[in-house]
């Protein structure tokens, strides 16, 4: 046996820090990640387009949730301003890909250019905000970032040449790569891919790449600095963590993810209204992080999928539950509309998770895993 080689069947016998810190440091993890990835790639050919479109939105939302988790979960800087950066990214990408001839800005650029640019514009905004944000902490930071949302909403509502203005909006991001329009069915190697299939795969690839990058960041020195700041900023500073610098990195990175998320989200949905980027959207992302699992990347993804699919699930409920109605108004003796139920569920789930399983869906998974890992003992 050679040195440094993994010793088969002995996952705990780690002979280097590299092996100790590896992302997939055990065979079950490698296997599990492989199976999930394979299932995700096979999904377009197994489920309906309607579900696939929601899955594509969930991928986009997951990118944003990862971004929020970096700044709030890992670095502990509560941000209510996430909607602002998502809006910035969405409109940047829309403007860059839009047709030049229309009433709103449009440069007719490629999608591949527009999405990173959307991330960068949001990142620059995040960078500009960070000096202010890093002077606050806790509740004050939440209030300061809340201000950002209202400020953003006002700007977007009134910047008609960019956003089309309140109530009108503009067309979403056009997915054109090398002359191929992905919002129309395309034939690839004899196989006709529908719009939903293409957009889902596109969003999935971006999510996987960005998730791996975020996970790598989280286990690096920067990630450890984030967690040190979260656990106790004064102690972190004493240890030599530069607070301002790392808070700046957290905000900038988080905003980049939000920008990309907005651009991808509105590639799937082809109409953007400036009033969408309000406090409710921020709260939705916070719900994703809390329900998915604070300070975990996989939790962010789980949370985003859960929250995105929640309306779809509640819409099925009136068939089973008698007093629910799928109509927007109450009639025929119904007690609740699905929209009201949805709002109630958000609240109940957030409170429930905070009390019962603060580590979210990821925590539930850890519980299940540890149950079997501990077999036949409890610990």
């Amino acid at each position, binding site marked *: 046996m050679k040195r440094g080689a993994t010793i088969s069947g002995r996952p705990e016998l780690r002979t280097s820090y590299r092996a100790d810190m590896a992302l997939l440091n055990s065979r079950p993890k490698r296997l599990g990640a492989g199976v999930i990835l394979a299932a995700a790639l096979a999904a377009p050919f197994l489920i309906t387009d309607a579900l696939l479109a929601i899955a594509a939105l969930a991928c986009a939302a997951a990118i944003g949730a990862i971004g929020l988790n970096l700044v709030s979960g890992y670095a502990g800087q509560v941000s209510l301003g996430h909607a602002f950066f998502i809006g910035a990214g969405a409109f940047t990408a829309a403007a860059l890909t839009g047709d030049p001839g229309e009433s709103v800005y449009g440069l007719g650029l490629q999608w591949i250019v527009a999405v990173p640019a959307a991330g960068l514009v949001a990142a620059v905004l995040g960078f500009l905000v960070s000096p202010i944000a890093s002077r606050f902490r806790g509740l004050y930071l939440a209030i300061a970032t809340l201000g950002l949302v209202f400020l953003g909403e006002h700007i977007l509502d009134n910047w008609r040449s960019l956003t089309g203005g309140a109530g009108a909006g503009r067309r979403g991001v056009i997915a054109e790569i090398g002359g191929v329009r992905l919002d129309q069915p395309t034939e690839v190697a004899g196989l006709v891919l529908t719009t939903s299939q293409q957009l889902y795969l596109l969003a999935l690839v971006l999510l996987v790449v960005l998730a791996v990058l975020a996970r790598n960041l989280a286990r690096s020195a920067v990630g450890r600095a984030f967690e040190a700041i979260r656990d106790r900023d004064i102690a972190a500073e004493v240890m030599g963590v530069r607070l301002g610098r790392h808070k700046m990195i957290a905000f900038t990175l988080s905003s980049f993810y939000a920008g990309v998320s907005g651009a991808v989200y509105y590639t799937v949905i082809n109409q953007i209204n400036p009033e969408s980027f309000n406090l409710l959207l921020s709260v939705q992302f916070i719900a994703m992080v809390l329900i998915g699992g604070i300070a975990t990347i996989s939790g962010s993804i789980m949370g985003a999928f859960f929250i995105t699919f929640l309306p779809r699930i509640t819409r099925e409920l009136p068939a089973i539950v008698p007093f629910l109605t799928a109509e927007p108004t109450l009639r025929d003796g119904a007690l609740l509309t699905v929209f009201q139920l949805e709002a109630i569920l958000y609240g109940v789930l957030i409170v429930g998770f905070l009390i019962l399983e603060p580590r979210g869906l990821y925590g539930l998974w850890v519980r299940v895993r540890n149950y079997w890992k501990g077999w036949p*003992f409890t610990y």
Partner: protein
Amino acid sequence: MTAVQDPRATELPETATTTLATRVRDWAAREPDGVAMREKHLGVWEEMSWAEYWDAVHTVGHALIALGVEPGDRVAVHAENRREWLISDVAIVAIRAMTVGLYPTNPAPEVHYLLGHSGSTVLIAEDQEQVDKALAVADDLPDLHTIVYLEPRGVRRYDDPRLLSWEQLLSRGRAHREEHPDAVAARMRSATPDDVATLIYTSGTTGPPKGAMLSVRNVEFAIATLIERGGFVDPPPTRSDLVLSYLPLCHVVERVFSVWFNAAAGVQVNFAESIDTVQQNLAEVQPTIVFGVPRIWEKVVAGVEIRATKATPVKRLAYRAGMALARRIGATLVAREGNHTLGTRVQYALGWALLFRPLRDRIGLRKARYAVSGAAPIAPEVLEFFMGIGVPMHEAYGMTENSAIATANRPGRVKLGTVGEPHAGIEVAVDERTGEICTRHPGNFVGYWRDPEATREMLDGQGWLHTGDVGEGVDGTHIRITDRMKDIVITAGGKNLSPSEIENALKASPYVKEAVIIGDGRKYLTALIGIELETVGDWAQRHHIPYTTYRDLTEKPEVVALIQSIVDETNARLAQVEQVKRFRLLPKELDHEDGELTATQKVKRSAIAHQFSDLVEEMYGGKGAAA
């Protein structure tokens, strides 16, 4: 380790005699990059290749020559199991000196005795603790001129001309190697089979420790018998086997399983962090070959039982179902000398999926292909437990004075309650008159260091080694050991009784850690019992009995009642004269430092009887009945 020379680049010295040193050198030539050993350092199992190992041995050999160590000189090593122990041991053999191992738990007076009696000139001490012990007595030791320390923490600022750090030792070695590149090789060439390779001080439950001299011939015979011919592990160990080194290396068994297995068969040695982390380290390393003393195996069983009672109901159910299977498998295996039947194989497959695989994984024995128990008698129930869950368990017997070569149970011919059959090619006999077990083979030791009288008592004119253990033949092949000859109790009624059998029956309970039977010249037998703090403490907690210290726990009437029930249970299985009529709980945990245990954790009977004589007299004086 720095500056590794390619072993192929250095010219291999030719030696007539194969020693541990030539074996390590040959591994380095054959498999320079192969893993020789691992040590957990700052959370990671650092690997040492054969080339690095041999390079370090070579350098330390030069360094010792530079320090003036001549053939036949004694060099002492006082450290926990670690890389430097093996490097030092092999380097000492390479330059034809003798290794003297000291137990890390040896207190300063014993260090004084051992260093003085052996006349060691160089001491390799692990850390400040061991250096302090040596410095406290160093002025009375004229022979000791150098103390090498491995861990500089705390020692760095000591101002004593005899002190030398391991790094300084290595740099001296390198300098000497530059100047006299052939010095170590020349020593290795001149080695003879009669060179004494090591002095192993026996723990001495009665008198002061005695240093058994084991020669190169003894070691080589042990390697041939126990390792190459599969005496201890069958099929014989290979490069792909792993062991965990955790028992003191100054004991002959750990030397066999760590140093000799490694040098002879290339077995990868993994050093446990400490004796307290053995459980965790076992689970990490998952060794293929495991040696344990009964105390370790008992502790594993007790730990499993405690954790199982604390598990959730579903898991408890699974555990009970699995253990019911294990008991049936174990009972069948015991009855069939370790051979499976179709029925046990089917049961095993069921149990494997349900319990055995995860259970063995948790206790670190999932990959164990061969387990050995020895160094003290073990309760058959414990062996049966392991056989039931699929760990092939074999009791073996041997002692320092015969290089651990006597008997062992072989796969497929396991008889519980016996220590197995004599190894191939050696003579083992039971003295008809006294029942004493005697061995005769080339592994019989040279003699006791500076103690010809004790040597004559052990080795007779015909080359027989008198082990001092009383035993009998079983079915003409196996041998059963009754007790140490000097421990046999003769009651006032004239009955000869073996205390260790009764003690082991008591110790089979997870609540009993120590049991000392008393009754020599008395009307009936009594016992001093030491409780296991962990399990009894846990039991007390579950029964809502508050306690503060060990002593407080032993004084709880509920605890006394608990032990009474174990004693009653044991008595029910014993003949009238063997029954324990009264007992007392020891008010403290026995300790090496207080002189109650030997360095190998064996109870010093005389010391116990003396120290707790008030308790003993109470049991016979009729002052208060037991419980």
